[in-house]
């Protein structure tokens, strides 16, 4: 616990650590969103994608990815907590009046409440893992792919989870609000923390960061909502239709 108590690490190293882990988690989110969009291609493609993830490199890939993500999360939280703690130490007596200077300042609601949005994201991640990773996969059964391989019907799990519980859909949507807020400051801030900015590029990088934040949040926000709204189309017991060319384009990649 001494590590948590008094970090003997330079303030610049802490920023590098927060930036590297934060940007890596953003890259994971991009991959996660692209993967999740295969839900719209139907049960065969989504299940094949899940099967691919779990069997790529004989199942080693997912293990390494999970341990890596856990580690990045832990380091990100540790370095962010350490920054928060330094904040309290560095200004024991606060101001009577607090304001925003405007102009080139990037101090916003989002940047001031990074810790709050971060905690909300952490709580959401735990709920999300309980919902899917640690859900009972036996209930949904299996599905036979075109090439005869039998795979767990995770498509059915996702569709059932969201279609049967509008409260959960709302919770997911609210969590994406927290994610958006965190990334509105987080993405640009990580680039600055890694020392990758120049005077001329700062305004653009700030805008690009906010655009990526909104795009990711909207993408994840729409998934549960659309699944809930398209209750007729997203049939959990759908029989895969292999005639669609779009789906056939994706399937070979995932089934290897």
């Amino acid at each position, binding site marked *: 616990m001494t590590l948590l108590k008094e970090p003997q690490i*330079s303030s610049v190293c802490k920023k590098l650590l927060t930036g590297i882990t934060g940007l890596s988690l953003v890259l994971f989110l991009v991959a996660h969103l692209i993967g999740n969009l295969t839900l719209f291609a139907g049960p065969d493609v989504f299940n094949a994608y899940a099967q691919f993830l779990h069997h790529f490199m004989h199942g080693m890939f997912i293990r390494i990815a999970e341990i890596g993500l856990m580690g990045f999360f832990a380091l990100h939280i540790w370095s962010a907590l350490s920054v928060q703690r330094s904040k309290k130490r560095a*200004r*024991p007596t606060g*101001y009577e009046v*607090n304001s925003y200077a405007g102009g080139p300042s990037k*101090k916003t609601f989002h940047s001031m409440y990074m810790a709050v949005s971060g905690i909300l994201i952490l709580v959401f991640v735990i709920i999300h893992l309980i919902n899917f990773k640690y859900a009972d996969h036996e209930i949904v059964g299996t599905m036979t792919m075109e090439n005869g391989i039998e795979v767990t019907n995770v498509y059915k799990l996702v569709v059932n989870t969201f279609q049967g519980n509008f409260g959960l859909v709302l919770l997911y949507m609210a969590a994406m609000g927290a994610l958006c807020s965190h990334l509105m400051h987080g993405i640009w801030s990580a680039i600055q923390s890694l020392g990758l900015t120049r005077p001329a590029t700062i305004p653009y990088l700030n805008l690009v960061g906010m655009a990526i934040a909104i795009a990711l949040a909207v993408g994840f926000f729409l998934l549960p909502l659309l699944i809930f709204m398209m209750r007729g189309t997203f049939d959990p017991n759908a029989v895969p239709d292999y005639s669609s060319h779009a789906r056939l384009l994706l399937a070979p990649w995932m089934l290897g």
Partner: protein
Amino acid sequence: MKVNLKIWRQAGPDAPGKLVDYTVENVDPSQSFLEMLDSLNEQLVKKGEVPVAFESDCREGICGNCGLVINGIAHGEKGGCTTCEIRMRQYKEGDTITVEPFRAKAFPLIKDLVVNRSAFDRIMSKGGYVAVNAGSAQDANSQLIHRDLAEEAMDAAACIGCGACVAACPNASASLFVGAKISQFTWLPQGQIERSTRAKKMVTQMDSEGFGDCSNHAECEAVCPKEISIANISRMRREFTKSLFARN
């Protein structure tokens, strides 16, 4: 014009402090903010009260001595100027203005609105210099330096060390000051000798002075009287990372 003031009064470093209400009548809109405080102090002296302690020297925005937090913003709402450059014309009749000292553990309060900014001097002593004799004007002219680099070095060297960046930072970080002081030497030949260790030494001293960590709010750039870019903080991080791999 009449203005109402709420000024932080504190008799000494360990004495309790509080905001005290004052009213200043007959303020001329062309007066500077500090001249307005001067007339308040004249009133207080006439009444036999202790005048408000605040710092100032050149009163033309170049010495970095003055520094007040006005309505929650270091050097006031105008931006791009020091406290002494603020004119009373930006306020309206009957406005209430809150005046507080720079707040940071590394800037201990001495009295009222005066804080001790020696922490900056100790950071400078760790690497904010060149050990070679830089010569005089003719030597500078005979050293050919690309105009863009000279401009960038000058933009950083414009820092007057007023400490507003620390006062404005939600974390009380001194990153902009240290970033500027490291950056001004980065591209110039005179700065190369100590370059490999400068960032490490100055950042280490900054941390040990008790300044907070930077969270990239960029509030410092917004209040900086010399409008120094936070890209200098970015450069400090690059220089620091490189200095970790330096031999000495």
